[in-house]
């Protein structure tokens, strides 16, 4: 039997290029459907787990998927904003705990998420070092952001300037890093968290500048008894410090301040039902259950996966036929060699065994290759949250 293995291995090793092509061709139909299944399963479980821990999401009427994605994965869409008034309405109803989510800006490409301390409780986010954002202008970094940008508490992080050519747009804000969150393997690792008021500073709605009485008179456009109009050329504070924090203010009714979404945690089923009914009865707002949206989304993914599975099936059949053809052609090419074995006195059983072991070797190598690829895929699956983001 040793001789059979030796001869088979020598043959396979001698024709290594042909063997490698055959092995790859056979490994692919094994790897593709299994790999797709693993990725989709992982994708689904990640989405469902995060959606499942988010009972309700309220937002402006519009695309349901956009609203779910902004609340769960901080994907800022072009959708309309919901206002702070709706958050107050939920709070005053006593039926649920509302958590603001405002995602409109970024810092070095990472989304800046304005929220309240309850969000960290909901997601069980704890600082690895430092503290949560307690003051205006404070920022706590997701674990991956801190790792990738090499930042730590005590450092500074500037928001991205949306337009460099429009002076009416708010300037970038230099924020103080107060902490870094523990790694969770979720979208929270890739975000930058601030107090929701800080996001309004970024939008220019809340701003800080020297007292009007101390401003250069040339930058005063007009004055009334109660109001001083300052020129837009007056550059507001670009960093919140203990010295200037009192200068930050908002010139309008607070209930009009915008939010991207509100995560709603109802106290009971009755509260859940009532709130959903109230919000969905309006023309401007909607309240949805993220699990339902994600399951709907996964329905589309599974429809695509059916095609992928069918494709993999066809690929497997075609590859099997091709492999059989290759083996048949190989037998024809080896006719002279088989004649030699025959004339020397090699038994028919041994010739069959030689072919069988060679084919088996190729199959085993294919399975090993597919398994290796699947192992690599499995090892990289935890990084999938990056892809989802």
């Amino acid at each position, binding site marked *: 039997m040793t*001789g059979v293995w*030796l001869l088979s291995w020598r043959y396979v090793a001698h024709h290594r290029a042909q063997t490698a092509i055959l092995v790859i061709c056979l490994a692919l139909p094994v790897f593709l459907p299994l790999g797709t299944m693993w990725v989709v399963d992982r994708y689904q479980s990640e989405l469902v787990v995060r959606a499942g821990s988010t009972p309700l999401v309220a937002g402006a009427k519009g695309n349901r998927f956009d609203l779910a994605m902004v609340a769960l994965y901080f994907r800022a869409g072009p959708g309309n904003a919901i206002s702070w008034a709706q958050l107050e309405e939920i709070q005053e109803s006593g039926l649920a705990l509302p958590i603001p989510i405002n995602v409109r800006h970024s810092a070095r490409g990472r989304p800046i998420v304005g929220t309240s301390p309850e969000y960290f409780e909901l997601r069980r986010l704890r600082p690895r070092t430092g503290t949560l954002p307690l003051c205006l202008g404070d920022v706590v970094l997701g674990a991956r952001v801190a790792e990738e940008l090499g930042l730590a508490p005590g450092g500074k992080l500037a928001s991205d300037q949306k337009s460099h050519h429009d002076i009416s747009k708010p300037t970038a804000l230099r924020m103080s890093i107060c902490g870094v969150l523990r790694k969770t393997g979720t979208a929270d690792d890739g975000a930058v968290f601030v107090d929701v008021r800080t996001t309004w500073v970024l939008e220019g709605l809340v701003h800080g500048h020297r007292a009007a009485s101390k401003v250069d008179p040339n930058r005063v456009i007009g004055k009334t008894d109660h109001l001083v109009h300052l020129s837009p050329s007056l550059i507001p504070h670009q960093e919140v410090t203990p010295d200037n924090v009192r200068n930050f203010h908002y010139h309008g009714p607070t209930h009009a301040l915008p939010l991207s979404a509100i995560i709603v945690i109802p106290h009971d089923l009755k509260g859940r039902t009532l709130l959903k009914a109230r919000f969905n009865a309006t023309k401007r707002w909607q309240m949805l259950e993220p699990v339902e949206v994600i399951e709907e989304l996964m329905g589309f993914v599974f429809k695509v996966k059916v095609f992928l599975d069918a494709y993999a099936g066809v690929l497997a059949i075609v590859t099997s036929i091709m492999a059989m053809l290759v083996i048949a052609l190989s037998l024809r090419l080896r006719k*002279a*060699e088989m004649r*030699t*074995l025959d*004339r*020397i*006195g090699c*038994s028919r059983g041994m010739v069959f065994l030689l072919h069988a072991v060679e084919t088996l070797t190729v199959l085993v190598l294919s399975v090993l290759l597919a398994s290796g690829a699947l192992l690599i895929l499995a090892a990289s699956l935890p990084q999938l949250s990056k892809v989802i983001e």
Partner: protein
Amino acid sequence: MTGTPAVVIDGMRFGYGDGDFRLAVDALSIAEGERVACVGPSGTGKTTLVNLIAGIQVPEAGSVRLGDEVVSSLTDAERRRVRIRDVGLVFQEFELLDYLSAYENLLLPYHLTPHLRLDEDVKARASELAGAMGISHTLARRPVGLSHGERQRVAICRALLTEPRLVMCDEPTGNLDSKTAMVTLDLLFAQAERHGATLLMVTHDQGLLHRFDRVIDVEDLQAEWTA
């Protein structure tokens, strides 16, 4: 030479399916240790005769005896067993496996059957045989890296290594130049004699015939065909 027959053919009749060729040999006996050259024009049945004696082909009638075994009446599996154990074959085209080294080609029969046991004695014998044939330095190479003469010597070593009772060569020097052919034959004769093997060689080379104990012409052997 002891005079004991190594090969005995009796009333053998053989024809290919299409009926174009028929070989009829009433009687042929080759003594043990005898060196016989088989000659004749192309297409007269020299290779067929070798194949029939080796049990590669089976006669329609009559018998072919190899030592004590009536090869012609054995099953296919039994004929193969006899062939790999008792017959050493050398072909004009060398017929070495290109994916094995010269050494592995030499040991090929031992890799192909459980009836031959590959042990240290065999390996020592292989090395000794290779040394005697002057190919020790080529054993690690693949056939593609060998000269024609070296390849044929590897093939001869393969045929002799199992210490067969009968060595049959089908035009072994056909692809070699005359000088290399002479050296190769010298080595073949010396090793066959050393191992006491009977030698039957198909050849067209008239200059070699004087080196054989007997020369048989296949045309002379051909008897009248009787069904």
